[in-house]
């Protein structure tokens, strides 16, 4: 018998504020969390969630993952967080693009200015890519399979896909899974600017003819995934279902996507097949939509190739228009945004979209949210994530 994966809790820290509902409500209203060319989580105060000692022992990306994890687990399992399953049957998987870059750069500075004896003994546990997973699993006593996934900007979606497979394969009853990233640092901002990946104008306008690169964001998204039968048996409120996952590699270029998006299209098709659906069943696309010239053109082609005529009939919008690019956290935060969009039966807008470009002719939901239409039954969406290195990960959600 097939094991199915449901979502019972969500939590988010984003440039729009604290909380998954803040994310969806503000994005749906067309608001933006981007200021001065960055999507910073200005409302995030670590000591609201952590003791002074815990905060010292966590890089910013880990601090955000802990806050998002608390929210998701409280929703799924109650404020006291009592685990509903054997702890060894609950995994934890928090993806990241880079890990604790804030800590790495701080310790590097100490090394250069004051020598090796000034480097903190906490440096490695703060900067390691699996630090957020370790912190969330320790905080809640999750003793099943625990690790981090790193696939740049696809990491959040790869991580959720892996987590779903853990449950499907019988390795866990539940996985606390998501992504976290906080690398608005000197090195990362300079490096992305040097390769002209980030927007010189500081405006995130995916699929618009004037787009000139992505806007760096930071944040975390965490979901509680559970095996459907187990969740139903304990009477859980089920928010939606992660019904499919597909992932491919471009094997093309270190940073540029394939111009025609062939491998991205393949990932979409694999995900839809995995969900036992067809292209005509897809009601909404939460695009990767970075606002870079290359991604948005290639992704549009990929969506058309994978969905055929259906692509022209459904809304396609980008969360990054509102919060910027959360890199390794993007897939997880966008999965939450997609789930909540389906629950509201409303596609939030691609903020700032005004000017069409030849060939980029999908319904990118300009201006305002619009209804996702397909009768009264559950709706289906795909959420795309593509990362440097040519990593493509696509989730299919139903709610």
């Amino acid at each position, binding site marked *: 018998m097939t094991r199915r994966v449901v979502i019972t809790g969500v939590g988010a820290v984003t440039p729009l504020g604290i909380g998954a509902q803040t994310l969806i409500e503000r994005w749906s209203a067309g608001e933006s969390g981007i200021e001065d060319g960055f999507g910073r989580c200005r409302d995030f105060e670590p000591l609201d969630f952590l*003791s002074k*000692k815990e905060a010292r022992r966590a890089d910013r990306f880990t601090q955000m993952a802990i806050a998002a994890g608390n929210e998701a687990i409280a929703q799924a399992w109650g404020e006291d967080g009592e685990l509903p399953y054997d702890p060894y049957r609950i995994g934890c998987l928090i993806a990241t693009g880079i890990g604790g870059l804030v800590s790495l750069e701080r310790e590097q500075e100490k090394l250069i200015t004051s020598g090796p*004896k000034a480097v*903190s*003994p906490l440096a490695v546990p703060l900067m390691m890519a699996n630090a957020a997973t370790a912190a969330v699993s320790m905080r809640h006593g999750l003793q099943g399979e625990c690790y981090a996934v790193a696939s740049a900007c696809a990491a959040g979606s790869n991580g959720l896909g892996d987590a779903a497979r853990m449950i499907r394969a019988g390795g866990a009853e539940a996985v606390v899974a998501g992504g976290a990233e906080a690398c608005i640092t000197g090195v990362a901002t300079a490096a992305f600017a040097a390769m002209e990946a980030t927007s010189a104008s500081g405006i995130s306008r995916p699929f618009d003819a004037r787009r000139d690169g992505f806007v760096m964001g930071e944040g975390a998204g965490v979901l509680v995934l559970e095996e459907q039968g187990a969740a139903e048996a304990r009477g859980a409120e089920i928010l939606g279902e992660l019904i499919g996952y597909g992932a491919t590699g471009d094997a093309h270029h270190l940073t540029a996507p394939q111009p025609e998006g062939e491998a991205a299209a393949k990932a979409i098709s694999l995900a839809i097949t995995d969900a036992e659906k067809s292209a005509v069943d897809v009601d909404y696309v939460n695009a990767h939509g970075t606002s870079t010239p290359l991604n948005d053109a290639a992704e549009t082609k990929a969506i058309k190739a994978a969905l055929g005529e259906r692509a022209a009939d459904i809304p396609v919008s980008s969360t990054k228009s509102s919060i910027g690019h959360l890199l390794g956290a993007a897939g997880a935060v966008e999965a939450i945004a997609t789930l909540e969009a389906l629950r509201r039966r409303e596609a939030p807008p691609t903020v700032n979209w005004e000017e069409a470009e030849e060939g980029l002719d999908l319904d990118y939901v300009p201006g305002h949210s619009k209804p996702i239409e397909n009768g009264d039954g559950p709706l289906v969406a795909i959420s795309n994530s593509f990362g440097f290195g040519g990593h493509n990960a696509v989730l299919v959600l139903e709610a």
Partner: protein
Amino acid sequence: MPTQVSPENVEKTIFDGLVELGTERDQLARDASLEDLDVDSLDLVELAQIVEDEYGVELKGDDVKDVKTVGEVIDLVVAKAS
């Protein structure tokens, strides 16, 4: 110049250091147990860095592996310095 090693100076350094690492100041006392204060091996390594910066006294992991109270840490630093 390193600060002069005296029990009073070292106590102040250790107390301030532990507060910096996240311990509540009102919990601090010479006879407070490190375990009760949730001071673990990573804290002791950080504390050793603070002590070395201040007094030029080097504490290794082996030196602190058996200390149980805040007072024992203070005494150890004073003893190592003399």
